[in-house]
């Protein structure tokens, strides 16, 4: 009720549209804070290593995050709606295994891509069906399918690997569109734009926010909650399929351990991007910046020969710090006032 008193006094009948201008909103936003962090990382990196500012090195650095970010965009929508999909990395494994299997049958590249995307969609549909059809909690369902999908991959492959992908299949993960701009980076940029439009400019995106803030209220407002959630699982599955195509193409081989542990990195990226893990708020630009931050930190540490485990410690600390900082700041401000 804290603002209620203010309301009853402040206005007569005419209510202004906005309390703060979009610029004021931006200045107080999470995205700006992240942007500052991103620039900080960039500056530190460029001082720390003379190789960092090389255009080709920077281009290489983008591969650290593009595939994960593709999934993170869809995951962001799913988390905003109050659900989660922890099976995304396992979907990559299953999709990649299916593609590898198809290669042994002598399938050509275009069909390979369709198989990768199709398996992703099918896995998303399976998750979505279990969650919306039976009303099961998504965290439980997708922990289950996480083991299931990768398990199938292990059964099919054992300790073997599928190789022998066609030469033109390599384009998706290794090709360059123009100068240092890789196909993956272009795909990342286009998808960022499409997802930003979907979430922030369409009725569908609005429904995602509404469901995340109040699923019962959404139902009582005429939103087809289950349909929207099912679509989001499909979308997440599909984007995992896209990531599977890119990653498999980049590696040129499929092992059952492919993309192992990515689900947590994807969720980290989403949360770092300012998406509320409990649903209801967050933006795609935030996720985009978070992707750059994570990619550059990993790459910078790589240039400095910092071991992988230190990198993950740093990412963990960064996540906690970036989430804790605004709260700590608010706390201190409140103290100072009192």
């Amino acid at each position, binding site marked *: 009720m804290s*603002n209620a*008193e*203010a309301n*009853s006094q*402040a206005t007569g009948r005419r209510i202004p*549209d906005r309390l703060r201008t979009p610029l004021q909103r931006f200045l107080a936003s999470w995205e700006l804070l992240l942007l500052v962090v991103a620039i900080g990382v960039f500056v530190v990196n460029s001082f720390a290593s003379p190789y960092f500012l090389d255009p080709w090195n920077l281009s290489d650095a983008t591969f650290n995050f593009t595939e994960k970010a593709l999934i993170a965009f869809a995951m962001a929508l799913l988390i905003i709606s109050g659900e989660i999909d922890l099976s995304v990395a396992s979907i990559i494994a299953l999709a990649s295994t299916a593609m590898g299997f198809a290669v042994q049958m002598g399938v050509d590249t275009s069909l390979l891509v369709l198989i990768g995307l199709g398996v992703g969609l099918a896995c998303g549909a399976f998750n979505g069906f279990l969650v919306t059809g039976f009303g099961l909690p998504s965290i439980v369902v997708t922990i289950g399918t996480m083991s299931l999908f990768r398990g199938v991959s292990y059964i099919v492959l054992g300790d073997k690997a599928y190789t022998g992908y066609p030469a033109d299949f390599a384009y998706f993960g290794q090709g360059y569109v123009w100068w240092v701009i890789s196909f993956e980076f272009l795909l990342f940029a286009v998808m960022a734009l499409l997802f930003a439009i979907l979430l922030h400019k369409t009725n569908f995106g609005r429904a995602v926010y509404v469901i995340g*803030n109040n699923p019962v209220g959404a139902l*009582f407002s005429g939103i087809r909650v289950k349909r929207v959630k099912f679509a989001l699982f499909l979308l997440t599955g599909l984007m995992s399929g896209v990531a599977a195509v890119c990653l498999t193409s980049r590696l040129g081989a499929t092992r059952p351990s492919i993309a192992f542990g990515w689900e947590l990195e994807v969720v980290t990226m989403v949360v770092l991007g300012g998406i509320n893990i409990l649903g209801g708020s967050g933006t795609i630009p935030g996720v985009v910046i978070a992707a750059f931050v994570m990619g550059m930190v990993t790459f910078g540490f790589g240039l400095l020969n910092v071991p992988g485990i230190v990198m993950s410690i740093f990412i963990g600390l960064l996540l906690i710090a970036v989430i804790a900082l605004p709260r700590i700041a608010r706390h201190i401000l409140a103290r100072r006032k009192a």
Partner: protein
Amino acid sequence: MLANSQGIKNVHAYETNEPAPVLSLKGISKSFPGVKALSEVALDLYSGEVTALVGENGAGKSTIVKVLTGIYQPDHGQIAIGGTPVSFPTAQDAGKAGVTAIHQETVLFDDLSVAENIFIGHAPKTRFGLIDRKQMVHKAQELLERIGAQIDPRVMLKELGIANKHLVAIARALSIDAKIVIMDEPTASLSHKEIEETYELVERLKAEGKAILFISHKFDEIFRIANRYTVFRDGQMVGAGKIDDVDEQKLVKLMVGRSVDQVFPDRHAKTGNEILKVVGYCHPTEFEDIGFTLRKGEILGFYGLVGAGRSEVMQALFGVTKPSKGAVRIDDKIAVIRSPDEAINHGIVYVPEDRGKQGAIKGLPIFQNVSLPSLKSTSRNGFLRLAEEFKLARDYTRRLDLRAAALDQDIGDLSGGNQQKVVIAKWLATQPRVIILDEPTKGIDIGSKAAVHEFMAELAAEGLAVIMVSSEIPEILGMSDRVIVMREGRIAAEFQGDRLTPENLVRAAAGISEAVS
């Protein structure tokens, strides 16, 4: 002893021997960023007496309760119990000092037993520091008997109805041997009979010498059970005294700072063609054989006890629950309604009773709440058009006289009455033909209430067909052209004209004229 002193004008007994208050608040202020919620308020509670705290939503009632229970710390001011100053840094400290609160939406735990709920946080312990279950159940049994509740302390709380849950909450309040009991709208969601039981309980607490702070929006109950009153307005204490010294008019005047016309809008119903017809509507568990018609421009009231199945019928009409049998005709054509989406397309909209869960989308701004069910018309090819949404929100919130700082403000920041205005606005924006209002003024302040009533009358005059579910008899009588009374999932009676009397409604709802089952 003082229970029925209402109406007795001789109050010398009080004045000659004024007791000292058990709890006394002086100069309490509390600010939140940008808002002064409480400003120098005072409040005294006396042993064995009920003090009614009244005020519009947003007057600061909930804030003072939170100050008293240690949830908020006041910026200034003094709390004294029995004359000694105290402070409550945490909720536990307030409990230890003998303050307990029974909340509007009681905080209990569905998956714990009744006894565990009563003793959570202060369960009797064995020698080894473990919970002494036997002792706990035994003590719980005693407490429940003391308040006349026939509840087995071993059953899970979720198996109880809402009225019994309240009794458990009261038993919990007694279990910490509280001197001061705060009751925050204890009767808001109870049926007629349950309310009576609550009153009896309050009398019993009074007799035990508890000092009771009773927060309520209902004047009849204030005059019935309170000994004293305190009025808050805009975070300030604007009046206090003995209930015998005031009347309803004066209290209302204090609350709103102006005199509010409490009469219902004068309506001359001009009903048109039949628009909605429900035939043989059944549900496996909730209702059976419901049939009625509704005309344009008509306000049809649905009265009954809580649990009579009124909301369930309305939610089936709105496509939330599935009826097992029956048909709905709109303009004499069969209408298939399987989801709220389809109901909205047919022009039927539903303003739910549970505003927090089902009505308002907290976390989203006002304008997005308003435009939500109308997105199809404000958007183009599935793409949002914010300008159209703002326009819609401006138009409809102005009609309802919404009070807010800006349309991009979170709806959760508004007071209950203003949230309800936004929820009604959102449905009107869809330009419905039938609007169902489920307890439309429950828990909202008197000013907003009048606005909602006036608006309903206006809508009906414009030819909208209105169904109003309400448990408040004055509201049902004041607003409805015709009233259907439901009991145990069936239509018990229908009244209009001269037969529309409080007595008839209550009888039909309670099934008094029939044999006791």
